[in-house]
């Protein structure tokens, strides 16, 4: 009897805590704040990629583990994404979001393409003709897949520390 009462007490308390603290604490949904978010099968940099997300996509957080979050995607796919790829703000992409522009200064919304953007870079480039972005664009094309990484580590006998492979 006393045990049951204790459990009821804890349940009710956590319910109130959730309600009072509101969305800031709940934060069940987060947005991808980078160009390509990688969702992995395990919470590790060696986990295979099960899904790729685009900038601004929102994900539902279902579990935390260290610097990783387990997310549920539309279509039933689940996997792990590193916290550094996520933002608590909703990210509004510019296309079709003209009305959002005025309200985008709030702390809960970020507007993609605002501030230092492609447009500003173009203007900066036109004012500084000696600066060359050709190699920057080429660098961005240097991509290494998780499979290549794994094969490379294996071939060179580089063994990630057990449990340290986060």
């Amino acid at each position: 009897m006393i045990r049951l009462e204790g459990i009821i007490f804890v349940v009710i308390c956590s319910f109130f805590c959730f309600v009072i603290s509101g969305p800031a604490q709940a934060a069940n949904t987060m947005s991808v704040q980078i160009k390509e978010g990688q969702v992995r099968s395990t919470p590790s940099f060696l986990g295979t990629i099960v899904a790729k997300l685009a900038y601004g996509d929102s994900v539902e957080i279902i579990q935390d583990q260290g610097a990783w979050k387990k997310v549920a995607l539309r279509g039933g796919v689940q996997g792990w994404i590193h916290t550094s790829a996520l933002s608590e703000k909703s990210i509004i992409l510019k296309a079709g979001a003209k009305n959002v522009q005025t309200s985008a200064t709030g702390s809960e919304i970020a507007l993609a393409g605002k501030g230092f953007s492609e447009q500003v870079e173009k203007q900066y480039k036109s004012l500084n003709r000696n600066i060359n972005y050709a190699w920057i664009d080429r660098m961005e094309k240097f991509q290494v897949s998780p499979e290549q990484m794994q094969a490379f580590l294996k071939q060179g006998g580089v063994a990630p520390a057990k449990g340290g492979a986060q």
Partner: protein
Amino acid sequence: MKTRLLPLSLIALLSLVSCQTMESATSIATTIGQSTGVVSSSQADSIQKTARAVSRSAEEFTPEQEYYIGRSVGAVVLTKYPAHEDDKVNQYLNIIGQTLAQASDMPGIFGGYHFLVLNSNEINAFATPSGLVFVTRGLLRCCRNEDALAAVLAHEIGHIELRHGMQAIKKARITEALTTIAAEGAKTFGSKEVAALTETFGGTITDITNTMIEKGYSRSAEYEADLKAVKLLRRVGYDPNGLVEMLTAMKKNLKAGGLDFAKTHPSPENRIEEIQKDGIQYATVKIPTARQQRFQQMLGKI
């Protein structure tokens, strides 16, 4: 049963109290997590940082804006140093560098991490905000094995993770930039808004490149980047003594009065000393044959 239940108002009050102590609870939980080994100290740092309110700082730039800053900083670096156009060598750097970056505490960066060799005999390296890393041939010649090379790249990743480039932006510039951005309306190319933003942007790039290329970061920033590198090397499975061996070779190769690491970084001796304070006992790095062979093939004649 009914009489035994606590009055609802009391329950509400109790849970309210527990909510208010949430932030200190975070720090207690983090400390416990750390002592039990569930949370690494760097993860603990980032958890603490998120719990704390952010003051007006460079962190208010979105990763997307940081990305555009990084691209232009990189483009300025490339006006001073030409790229070393060897696809195989650049690919080798990227496979090691991107693997390390994925294992770091900040794998999620807007445009990803990318690495490029610079065709210069100087002993130098640069890391822009948002993941562009440049290493000169002169610095690569200080590496006798892959672990030493990984150490060079891990140090640069450390600068990015610790946001040293972004911290070089002058405080007044940050305020100016964030104010301009907040007031930004519908902008079109060539408009007043874009002109104002571009001016602030140009100033931001200058702040960062002046520090990164000319003045150098603080000594403590360099030691911090070394410690980050040591942690990262261990995590991936490279020998942290690769960093010590690279610094020992650098000591021989650096020329006094040089405008490279001789000017912008603490001396290799001091860096080794700081790393060893962190508990690294020097022992010769042992490299498996296959790893040494591929290194020689790629960088033996750099």
